[in-house]
C-alpha cells in the first residue's frame, strides 16, 4: 500500500508549492498575465527560425535603415538586415543567456554555499573570496572576463555568472546556517544521520525555494547585463543577434530609427518584467513568513 517516499517527492512538493497557493493567499491577475507573456515570448523566440522572413544575418547594403514596410515588417538595420527577423531570433540567444546564467550561477553557488555552510573551516576562506568577488564591480569584471575569452556566448554567460555567484553563495549559506539550528536538524543528528546526509536531505531542500526566486532575478539581470556589455563593446559578437547587441548597434540611431531600440527593448523589458513579476510572486508564495501571516 505504501511506497517509500523518495527525496524526489519532496523536491516535487516544493515545486508544486510554487503553483498551489497557501490558504488565504490571493494571486492577482498580474502574475497570470506575466506568465502568459513569458510563454508567448519564449515560444516565439524558440520557433523564430521557422517563421521569420529573412536570414537574420543576411546583409543588404542597398536596403539600409529602411522604414517598416510590408517587405520589412519592422524596417532594417544599418547593415540592411531585417529587424523583425533579428529581434525574433535575438530572443533565443538573450533568453539562453538569461537561463544559462541563472542555471550556472545557481548550481555553482549552491555547491559552494553548501560547502561554506557546512565546513566551518572552509567557510571563512570561501566567504573572503566571495566578498572580494562582490567588491569588484560586476560590469568591470565582466568586461575583463570577456576581453580574456573573447566575446563568445559562453564567455558572456561566464562573465555574467561570476559576479552573481557570491550572492547565491551568501543566500545558500545563510539558509543553511539558519536551518542548522532547526530542531528537526538536531533531531536528525540525534538519530545518527551523517553530516552529508543531513546537508543534502534536510538542509538543501530549504535552499530550493529561495534559489528559484533568486534564479529568476539572475535570469532577468543577465539579459540586461548582456545588453549593457554590448553597449560597452564587450558583448556577444554581432554575428549572433541578441536583444542586447541589436539595441547596442541601434543605439546611435535612437533619434532617427527608434525602432531599432524600441522593438528589442520592448521584448526585453516585457520579458524581464514578466520574469521579475513571477519571481516576486514566487517569493511571496514561498516566503514562510508571508504564509504564516496569511494562513
Amino acid at each position, binding site marked *: 500500500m505504501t511506497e517509500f517516499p523518495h527525496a524526489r517527492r519532496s523536491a516535487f512538493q516544493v515545486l508544486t508549492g510554487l503553483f498551489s497557493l497557501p490558504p488565504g493567499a490571493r494571486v492577482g491577475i498580474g502574475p497570470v498575465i506575466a506568465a502568459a507573456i513569458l510563454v508567448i515570448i519564449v515560444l516565439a523566440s524558440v520557433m523564430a527560425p521557422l517563421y521569420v522572413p529573412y536570414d537574420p544575418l543576411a546583409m543588404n547594403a542597398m536596403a539600409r535603415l529602411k522604414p517598416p514596410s510590408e517587405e520589412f515588417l519592422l524596417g532594417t538595420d544599418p547593415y540592411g538586415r531585417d529587424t523583425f527577423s533579428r529581434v525574433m531570433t535575438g530572443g533565443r540567444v538573450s533568453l539562453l543567456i538569461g537561463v544559462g546564467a541563472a542555471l550556472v550561477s545557481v548550481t555553482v553557488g549552491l555547491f559552494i554555499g553548501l560547502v561554506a555552510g557546512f565546513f566551518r573551516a572552509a567557510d571563512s576562506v570561501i566567504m573572503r573570496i566571495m566578498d572580494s568577488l562582490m567588491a569588484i564591480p*560586476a560590469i*568591470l569584471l565582466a568586461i*575583463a572576463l570577456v576581453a580574456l575569452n573573447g566575446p563568445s556566448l559562453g564567455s558572456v554567460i561566464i562573465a555574467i555568472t561570476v559576479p552573481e555567484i557570491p550572492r547565491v553563495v551568501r543566500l545558500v549559506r545563510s539558509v543553511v546556517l539558519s536551518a542548522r539550528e532547526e530542531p528537526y536538524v538536531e533531531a536528525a543528528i540525534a538519530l545518527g544521520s551523517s553530516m552529508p546526509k543531513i546537508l543534502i536531505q534536510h538542509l538543501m531542500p530549504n535552499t530550493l525555494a529561495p534559489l528559484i526566486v533568486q534564479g529568476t532575478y539572475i535570469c532577468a539581470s543577465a539579459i540586461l547585463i548582456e545588453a*549593457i556589455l554590448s*553597449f560597452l*563593446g564587450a558583448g556577444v559578437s554581432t554575428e549572433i543577434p541578441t536583444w542586447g547587441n541589436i539595441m547596442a548597434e541601434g543605439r546611435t540611431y535612437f533619434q532617427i530609427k527608434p525602432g531599432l531600440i524600441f522593438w528589442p527593448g520592448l521584448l*526585453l523589458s516585457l520579458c524581464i518584467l514578466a520574469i521579475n*513579476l513571477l519571481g*516576486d510572486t514566487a517569493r511571496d508564495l514561498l516566503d514562510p*513568513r508571508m504564509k504564516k501571516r496569511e494562513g
Partner: protein
Amino acid sequence: MFVYILKRVLATIPVMLIVAIFVFLLLRLTPGDPAAILAGDAATPAQLDRIRERLGLNDPLLTQFFTWMGQLARGDLGVSLLSNTSVAGMVADRLGPTINIALMTIVISVALAVPMGVIAAWRHRTWVDFLVMSFSVLGFSVPVFVIGYILIQIFAIELRWVPVQGYKDPSEGFGAFFSRAILPSLTLATIYIALIARMTRASMLEVLGEDYIRTARAKGVRENVVLFRHALRNAAVPILTIIGTGFALLISGVVVTESVFNIPGIGRLTVDAILARDYPVIQAMILLTAGIYVFVNLLVDVSYSLFDPRIRY
C-alpha cells in the same frame, strides 16, 4: 564599538588582497598589448618590442606583481602606460564627478524610494502597492542607456530644461552642477529606486506584522506615526543593507551613464583603460572601486547600531 570597527577594517585587508591578486592575474592573462596602442597602427613589431621592454611588460609575471605590490605598499599607484601621468592624479581628477553624481543619486533614490516602499507596504495589495511595485519592476527591466536616452530626449532636447551632457563641479556654482547632474542621477536612480523601494516594502511588510505595531495601534497612535516612527526604524537594517550592496549596481550603472552623459568620471576611465589595457590604471581603479564598496558597506554595518540599539559591537 571601536574594537569592532578596527576588526572590520582589519578584515578588509585580506579581501582587498584577494581583489588585488585576482585583478592582476585576470589582466595579465587577458590578451592585449598596451605597447601597441601607445605606438599606433603603423609601428613595426620590433618597435613594439622595444616599448614593451621599456614598460616592463616583458618581465616575468611574478616580478611585475611584486613590483606593483611594492609600489602599492609605498602608496604609489604607478604611472599610466599611455599618458605617462601619475595614476593617483588621474584618479583624483576623475573621482569627484563620480562621487558627486553617486551621492546625488543616493539622495534622490532614498528620498523617493523609502516613502514609496513604506506606502506600498501600508497599502499592501491595493492599487498604490501595485503602482509602486510596477514601477520598481519596470526600473529593473529597461537597460540604463535606454533610460538615459529617453531622459535626454525629453528634458534636454524637447523641453530644453537642462544641457544634454557634460559635467561641472559644484564649486563652479551649484546651479551649473545640478542642471548637468540631474539627468544622469535620475538615470542611475531608476534602478536604485526600484531596488530600495522593493526592499523597503518587503521589510516594512514584515515589520508591520510585528506585535509592537499592534501595540502602537492599541495605544491609539496615528497611522503615520506608526509607519514612520515605529515601523520604519525597525525596517531600517535590511534597507541599509540593500543601499550598501546596491552600491555595486550603482558603480556598474555609472560606467554606462558616464558614457551617455559624457561625464569624466572613474567609470569611463576604467572602461577606457580596460579597452586600452592600461594596466596600472585598471588595477588602481578596480582596487579603488572595490575599496569604496567595502568602505560603504563598512559604514552601513556600523550605522546599523544607530537604528537598532540591540546591535552592539
